[in-house]
């Protein structure tokens, strides 16, 4: 029997979140609410030095004066910020030296996700800094990295062991007062990753952190700081899955990348937070501030596959400060059911001969809304700046929407900016062509979606590309053949 597009659409509408399960681990959770005492308590809990506490309090003060942004093309019930617990950590302490010591239930969780540490270690050679509800539980491959002088640890550890680095760079790309969510994160961030690649070092493996929200009613406030010193290279992976919860969970992360002269950072994300059920109930609010700064000849490349979250508000950006620096942004955003995504990038060209590339692919199904919002800004001193942007949208059914909001601002006559966007559905002739060759409708759609996303999938590191395809497959029933 032929699998028609209507059937696929129906399947998509009824498809439920496959990774919805909840690990029962005892957690050490703070009472709900946010005030100066809570900020102090978080800081104390993390055994932070005085300057860090002050920094957090300062951010909290700024946050109190700020308004939640309303400009994004998303509609949601505003979270009650006084009804969230701002800290939660798995109870079993201290940290484990080997996997055997880790709570077996937790290991099981990872097995279910298909990201078991052993397997990852063996197959991919990936060093994992696993964050379960905000505290690093296991860190592997640390010794290999240490030999090269690479620091890869949780940010709380970095605050204690490498305060000079953290002090110098934290908040330098995303200031405390940058926006509502960044300020909130700066005040209450629970943990996150810190990475420093020394001069001239090429990081021998893909660094990776898996984030998981695990505790009901706990917002996750991750802070990632990645510094690549002169002429170094690092590829960093970030991936997320969250268990099924009924109430909305808030995720307000901040990621800061610093690429010094000649450095290259490749930052890849696969995001699959719980998107809410097919009635649009529940789901994670993903309000993320990601930004990187490029010094001379440096390069930052963002790659993201966004399939989850009820509401996504995310604009990984590049400030191309140094001459000859390069920024790249490759994105696939897939929305289904009642998901809403407002995502894109900002490319701020400040230096001479700076280049940026934006490839964004949006796929909307069900009753979802998918927006691309991007800014390309060529400042007056950015001679010979070059930008190419391409935003393609694929619509499945007529209950969803695809939106494009590109902002292009050029103040230099030598600027060359190109932007193009298309919106289309899967062509009947394309499906017909496949049918003719004995490929059924379902497989054909899979092939086409895969082909549509290929440009971005190709940019992912191999380990991630497989997972990303799997996620697309889960989000679009049987579409990847």
């Amino acid at each position, binding site marked *: 029997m032929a699998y028609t597009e209507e059937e696929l659409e129906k399947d998509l509408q009824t498809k439920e979140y496959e990774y919805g399960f909840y690990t029962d681990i005892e957690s050490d959770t703070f009472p709900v609410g946010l005030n100066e005492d809570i900020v102090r308590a978080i800081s104390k809990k993390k055994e932070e030095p005085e300057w860090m506490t002050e920094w957090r309090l300062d951010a909290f003060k700024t946050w109190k004066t700020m308004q939640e942004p309303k*400009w994004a093309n998303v509609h949601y019930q505003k979270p009650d910020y006084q009804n969230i617990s701002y800290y939660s950590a798995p109870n079993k302490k201290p940290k484990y030296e080997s996997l055997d010591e880790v709570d077996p239930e937790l290991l099981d969780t990872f097995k279910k996700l298909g990201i078991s540490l052993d397997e990852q270690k063996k197959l991919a050679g990936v060093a994992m800094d696993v964050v379960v509800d905000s505290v690093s539980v296991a860190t592997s491959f640390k010794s290999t990295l240490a030999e090269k002088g690479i620091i890869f640890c949780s940010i709380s550890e970095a605050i204690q062991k490498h305060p000079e680095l953290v002090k110098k760079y934290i908040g330098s790309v995303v200031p405390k007062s940058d926006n509502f969510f960044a300020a909130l994160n700066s005040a209450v961030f629970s943990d996150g990753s810190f990475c420093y690649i020394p001069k001239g070092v090429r990081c021998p493996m893909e660094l990776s952190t898996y984030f998981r929200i695990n505790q009901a009613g706990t917002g996750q406030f991750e802070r990632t700081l990645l510094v690549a010193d002169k002429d170094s290279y690092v590829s960093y992976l970030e991936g997320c899955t969250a268990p099924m919860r009924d109430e909305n969970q808030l995720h307000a992360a901040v990621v800061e990348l610093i690429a010094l002269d000649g450095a290259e950072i490749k930052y890849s994300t696969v995001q699959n937070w719980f998107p809410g059920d097919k009635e649009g109930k529940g789901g994670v609010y993903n309000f993320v501030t990601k930004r990187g700064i490029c010094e001379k000849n440096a390069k930052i490349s963002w790659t993201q596959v966004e399939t989850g979250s009820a509401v996504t508000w995310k604009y990984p950006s590049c400030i191309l400060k140094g001459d000859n620096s390069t920024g790249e942004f490759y994105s696939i955003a897939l929305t289904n059911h009642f998901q809403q995504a407002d995502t894109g990038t900002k490319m701020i060209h400040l230096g001479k001969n700076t280049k940026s590339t934006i490839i964004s692919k949006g796929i909307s199904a069900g009753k979802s809304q998918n927006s691309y919002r991007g800014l390309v800004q*060529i400042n*007056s001193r950015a001679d010979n700046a070059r930008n190419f942007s391409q935003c393609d*949208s694929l*619509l*499945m*059914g*007529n*209950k*969803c*929407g*695809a*939106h*494009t*909001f*590109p*902002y*292009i*601002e*050029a*103040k*230099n*006559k*030598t*600027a*060359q*900016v*190109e*932007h*193009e*966007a*298309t*919106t*289309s*559905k899967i062509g009947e002739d394309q499906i017909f062509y496949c049918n003719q060759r004995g490929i059924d409708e379902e497989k054909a759609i899979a092939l086409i979606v895969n082909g549509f996303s290929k440009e971005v999938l190709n940019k992912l590191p191999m380990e991630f590309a497989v997972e990303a395809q799997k996620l697309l497959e889960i989000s679009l029933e049987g579409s990847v053949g």
Partner: protein
Amino acid sequence: MDLKEKLISSFFAFEEQIDLENDIHQLRNNAIKFFENKGFPTKKEEAWKYTSLKSILKDDYSIFPKKEETIEYRDIKKYCIHEIDTYQIVFVDGIYASHLSNTTHDKFDACLMSSALNNPKYKSIIDTYFNKIAPEESLTALNTAFSKEGAFIRVPKSVAAEKPVQILHFSTGNESALMLQPRNLIVVEENAQIQVIERHQSLTANAVLTNSVTEIFVEKNAMMDYYKIQNDKISSSLIDHTHVKQESNSHCSVHTFSLGGKLTRNNLNFYQHGEHINSVLNGVTILEGKQHVDHNTLVHHTQPNCESHQDYKGVFSDRSTGVFNGKVLVDKIAQKTDAFQSNNNILLDDKASINSKPQLEIFADDVKCSHGCTIGQLDQEALYYLRSRGIPLKEAKALMMFAFANKVLTGVKIPEIKNRITKQIALKIGVHLGFDL
């Protein structure tokens, strides 16, 4: 007293002069209240993000100019498309100048808004069409509050207007600063056809601010071409709102040539209300000095099988700034929509800037929607090619700029307008090519 207060207090004086019995009376009162609440738009509003009205609102504009009768045809001839036979509706300082005009009531009506508003003969048309598609927006409301004069054109069923209509607004500079608020209504009934040319021109260097609203209704199978020539003095600013509502199988094109003026804002909105509609929005912008042009377009596709084509080209030199903010909205029932939007810009100087925001908002799946936006320079290799064949740099640049704008100019159906625009462009660039392009 700032301009807003002045406008509000003058409103009551204005209301007293005119017939209170008129139905429009209530409309005007509501509109002024709306404006009072909203005030002038600021850069905080998304639609005005790149255009600040501050610099043009500080002048002390007079709102009710005196009648000026000394203007002769020879003073304005060069601003008219005089090479061809047309009907002309001419306003001097916002007041109808009968000695300069040539109106008609024969086959179709091309006359004054004031007479349409007051003549019982047109009551049904005014009731059906007046202020029906102009959205609730502060500047439009302000215009509605003061709406009294402008052009009224109505082409009855199955009539093709035998010649184009020119709507010309001149300001004499009798006042040190003048604010004009013309209001036009154009109704093209079923199977009818018309071409309209519009121009705002200041004759002196005194400040002029025009806040113009035009409502256009293009009924089934009708055709309408609208040419806006904007090449005003550096002391003049224009805020134009043009709203077009189209019915099935109709065709409407609006061509905007922005070649001058201090600040020009073109709000151009198309609402498609039937199937198989074609809407064309073309624009050529060539700016210098400190000029500012902001094109804000909206095409709303509400029914299936329609098309829209937008093509805006801009060349910016010196310290000029250009804004393009185009939006295509496709409703979920508007399947098989073919919407195209293109915005190409050339920056010639470092101080010039362009802000472009082409937006698509699409709710239907079976559509062909695309947009493209580029910012660049003249191709160095092409310039070299021309120069190696003995064409001087200036002329080579001019040729390339003509080539750049030509795609939009080819859509102009009245050759005299095309000639005039090419000449004006040549004048701006300061070249004489010795042949017509």
